[in-house]
């Protein structure tokens, strides 16, 4: 009973920290409350959005083209394997020690983390397009570019948005440790407990978790919205969430 109350107490205090300013643990400064957390949240969103846009602009066209010409099995599997194996903390620390602190470096790190899932899902999405549909389009006289734009891209969109969803969740989650590079995101209270204490850490963790779940939900909705009607009939969109390239899925085409 008392344990339950203590747990509730911690969460209660953490929620109070989110909504109301208080004096810092070390004293002297006011911390927490909506104004400070929204400033952190704004930075958090800014670096995340820029990173995702950069990664998408770089990765999606490349993977679309590779998927179109049917070369890149190796790249698709290799990037996703390497991408998963590099710990986000190690990558960020690598940039801090070898290149330096600051917003630009954080954005580059986040974009690098977003690239592998985008390349893999886009490539697999294009390769999974029914070859008959592509042949039919070619038979009707569509050029290569038109086939990409009017056939392969629309049919690969659910898979691409699945990749965007994974990438967005990774980026928003990893932006939490950006304060290690002096970029004050929502991770600031987590990284500096001397000032914020456990209550601040827990409060920030709650905000980060809620935001990430919202991002995940939003992209799940988008994924459903971009699925062409024909595909919805053939296959429930939910199934396409995890399209990783197994030997079977690559050979299926």
């Amino acid at each position, binding site marked *: 009973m008392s344990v339950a109350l*203590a*747990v509730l107490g*911690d*969460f209660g205090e953490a929620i109070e920290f989110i909504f109301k300013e208080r004096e810092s643990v070390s004293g002297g400064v006011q911390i927490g409350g909506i104004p400070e957390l929204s400033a952190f949240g704004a930075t958090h969103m800014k670096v995340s959005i820029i990173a995702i846009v950069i990664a998408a602009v770089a990765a999606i066209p490349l993977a679309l083209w590779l998927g179109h010409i049917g070369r890149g099995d190796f790249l698709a599997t290799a990037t996703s*394997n390497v991408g*998963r*194996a*590099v*710990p*986000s*903390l*190690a*990558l960020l*620390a*690598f940039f*801090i*020690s*070898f290149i330096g602190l600051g917003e630009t470096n954080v954005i580059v790190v986040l974009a690098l983390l977003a690239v592998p899932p985008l390349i893999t899902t886009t490539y697999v999405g294009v390769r999974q397009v029914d070859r008959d549909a592509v042949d039919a389009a070619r038979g009707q006289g569509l050029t290569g570019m038109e086939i990409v734009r009017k056939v392969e891209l629309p049919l690969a969109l659910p898979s691409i948005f699945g990749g965007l969803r994974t990438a967005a*969740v990774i980026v*928003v*989650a*990893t932006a*939490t*440790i950006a304060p*290690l590079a002096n970029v004050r995101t929502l*991770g600031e209270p*987590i*990284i*500096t*407990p*001397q000032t914020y*204490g*456990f209550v601040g*850490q*827990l409060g*920030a*963790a*709650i905000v*980060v*978790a809620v935001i*990430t*779940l919202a991002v*995940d939900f939003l992209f799940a909705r988008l994924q459903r919205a971009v699925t062409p009607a024909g595909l919805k009939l053939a296959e429930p969109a*939910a199934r396409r*969430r*995890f399209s*990783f390239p*197994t*030997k*079977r899925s690559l050979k299926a085409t």
Partner: protein
Amino acid sequence: MIGVPLAQGGLKIQEPGGSDACAAANDFCPSWIAENIDRYWTPLLEHVYLTVVPVTIGFAISLALAIIAHRRRWLTGPIITVTGIFFAIPSVAAFFLLQPLTGLGYNTAMVALVSYTLLIIFRSITLGLRNVPVDTRDAALGQGLTSRQVLWSVELPMAFPEIIAGLRIATSTTVGLAALAVFAGAGGLGTEILLDKRFKSNVATAGGLAILLAAALDLLLLAVQRLGTPWQRARA
């Protein structure tokens, strides 16, 4: 009272080996790494532990869930929704959200890391089971096998490649997330990274060891897959 992992000790830039000019300049120094590699063995072992145990527990839970969902198809959706929520919550946040319940240390890290593996492994087992050709299943049933025998001696062995594919993804993901277990006070290579994140030799060694660990475990799983699917070798 719940402890604060980073207040004491952590985040203080550790003084790299005094006399060495290269180390003093926070540079990348092979000689410093060669001399100080000893200090990384314990964190590396902790990291192995923080990867292998969660993936094993996660596999056991996912296998049980997948077998239940194999019989009762309607459960697949709800299981994916719930494990999907676990999967989306950032690990750093989860390490703090769990602390009021599980305290600081291994338990918190374990619960969080296990919860990340569930979606990945559950999906791969389900995918593998669904990819088993209906004819194969019918043939097994026709030979008089009970549905339990079909599951354990036909369907699950045939799903082996997909299951291993899922385990490989779960393992390399967990190696990366375990680097963040330092926020749960559970040690691992992340502790060393945070101890001196400006010292190039330190970051390169700790990060490099994590990547090597992921690669080694990946190769190990690949070997298990080859041993576990003799029929695929015979065909090739």
